[in-house]
């Protein structure tokens, strides 16, 4: 799965040694969650409705980050 422009995701290419038996995984992904970039929450953040908030796990739109296995084919 290519990751295109999923926000809050970064990747790196692990070093490949000459004697590594596993086929290369390609890139390793990691998460840089929204809390890294927002600082002290400013006033009037956009909110989800109550039922949406429950479904998503946060009331605040800018903190929402849906996670899926990045290696899933």
């Amino acid at each position, binding site marked *: 799965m290519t990751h295109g422009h999923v926000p809050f995701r970064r990747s790196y290419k692990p070093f490949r040694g000459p004697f590594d038996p596993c086929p290369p995984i390609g890139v390793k992904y990691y998460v840089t969650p929204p809390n890294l970039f927002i600082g002290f*929450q400013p*006033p009037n953040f956009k909110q989800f409705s*109550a*039922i949406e*908030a*429950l479904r998503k796990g*946060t*009331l*605040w739109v800018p903190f929402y980050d849906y996670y899926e296995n990045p290696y899933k084919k």
Partner: protein
Amino acid sequence: MAQPLSPDYYKQLEEIQAVDFVIFELVLYLDTHPNDSQAIEQYNHYAAHSLKLKIEFEAKHGPLRFGMPMRNDQRWEWSEAPWPWQV
């Protein structure tokens, strides 16, 4: 569990879960933003709404909150199933 719960039980329960979730999010926000009076106002709105939903739920489906008045004085419903992990 004796009989399966009505769809109504799940609907009302989820409504309460949603409103209580907003309350929890506002509480954590206010813990670090204690002077946001707009958020306090919103908190009060949801707190009142939650209370109303819970009173309705308890009248229909039995006790939800510890230590509240019971609808039934013939049978002790608090200790009856279903428990949260059983529904």
